[in-house]
């Protein structure tokens, strides 16, 4: 999917449909015996993980535990950040041992957030396997990391920002592309 700058590739009603597709796609990727847990990467990965878990529950009938991961302390650019990094709580009130952990984030771009998230995650336990699900995937990877599943794939030139909005944080759902 290629979108011009400033356009709105996904509107609020489409986002719910994308989440449902992602839930269906995710169930197809895991074996029935795997115990799934979702970890949302703060900030926007968390509400997405919670909504994805609802859809998975509706589809499979089983409740899926959801936790949150704050990756600030694991960022590789922490010392170069301008302003004070604000660390928010990581909440994983369940064991990761032998589970299939699905990391959920809004956008996959350079891959550095996911690299940090994997470091953070492994400090909490040793899962059986780790998967990555994102709402929007774009090109520009700086690390050998790829998503197992993406809501949409957008082609945008460098210097542009793909922004996922979620109603829990931004008041509305949507995906936009802006010049930055």
């Amino acid at each position: 999917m290629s979108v011009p700058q400033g356009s709105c590739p996904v509107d609020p009603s489409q986002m719910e449909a994308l989440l449902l597709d992602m839930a269906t796609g995710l169930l197809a990727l895991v074996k029935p015996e795997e115990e799934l847990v979702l970890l949302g990467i703060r900030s926007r990965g968390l509400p997405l993980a919670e909504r994805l878990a609802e859809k998975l529950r509706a589809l499979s009938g089983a409740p899926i535990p959801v936790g949150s991961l704050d990756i600030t302390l694991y960022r590789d650019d922490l010392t170069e950040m301008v302003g004070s990094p604000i660390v928010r709580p990581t909440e994983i009130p369940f064991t990761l041992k032998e589970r299939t952990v699905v990391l959920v984030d809004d956008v996959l771009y350079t891959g550095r957030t996911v690299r940090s998230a994997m470091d953070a995650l492994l400090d909490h336990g040793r899962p059986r396997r780790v998967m990555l699900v994102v709402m929007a995937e774009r090109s520009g990877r700086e690390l050998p990391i790829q998503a197992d599943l993406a809501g949409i794939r957008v082609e945008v030139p460098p210097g542009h920002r793909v922004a996922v909005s979620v109603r829990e944080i931004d008041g509305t759902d949507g995906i936009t592309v802006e010049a930055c």
Partner: protein
Amino acid sequence: MTSERYVFPHKHLLGIEPLSPRDITALLDQAQAFEEVCERPNIKIVPALRKKLVVNLFFENSTRTRNSFEIAEKRLSAEIINFDADTSSLNKGETLIDTAMNLQAMHPDLIVMRHSAPGAHTLLARHMKASIINAGDGSHEHPTQALLDAYTLRKHFGRLEGLRVAIVGDIRNSRVVRSNLWLLNRMGAKVTLVGPPTLVPQEMKQTWPGIEICHDFDAVIPEQDAIMMLRAQFERGTGAYIPGQGEYSRFYQLNPARMKRARKDVVVLHPGPINRGLEITSDVADGPNNLILDQVTNGVPVRMAVLFLLSHPHGEQVP
């Protein structure tokens, strides 16, 4: 939680006095995030201060504060050098400035210092590029103690504003009191200072007009949400101001009889080390209302928050 755009504007933590309510809230919120790290079942270490060098420079004895800082530094993956006054060249006549210059040559990022002279930290801050953290300076300030006290109170009550806190004992010689007065006043708590007239300087009301001073402990107990007992510091000369330890205990010891006058849900704090049987009895210090060991536990995430916020680029950089 503070907003994403907030910038902690200080390079050093020399005291609570220069901090705004927003700065204090930011530190306490960060400490909350670090408490999660400290309570993890597995790895209680995060790489946030990797490759940063922290020097612990203690010119005065301290077990609790120093260990607490060292644990905080280790949990943040910092490189640590412990520099004890006993083993240093200070005994050979080196001045504080010389010591500072020598340390500067090793390019530390943060220096945690305890020194008996108020102002030693300001002097050091002027001569060094590193961020200076005051771990206690004479009877002037002990900012991380006040922050961990506030953190403990906020965690228990969910707020600081409007809390009624009595601070009891050797007010005159206590740096903990001064830092707590700056902090609690700024955050809207109502503080009453309690102790014998010789140990509670009236002029403190000029610096902190919002406070009450009372010499009758029994009279103020019933209305307090929290009672913070101070250590009677005979090593700092408390003895010169009071007739005797027995007399002191009779009027200002927190014991079961006095606890009966207090609200059922009152909490008892003490910065330690405790003189059991002097300012507080064991049954109160170990009783159901005490948060004394919570204070010790909370000291680590609070100090992690201080180290973390100071070790990252600052805004306009006010001291």
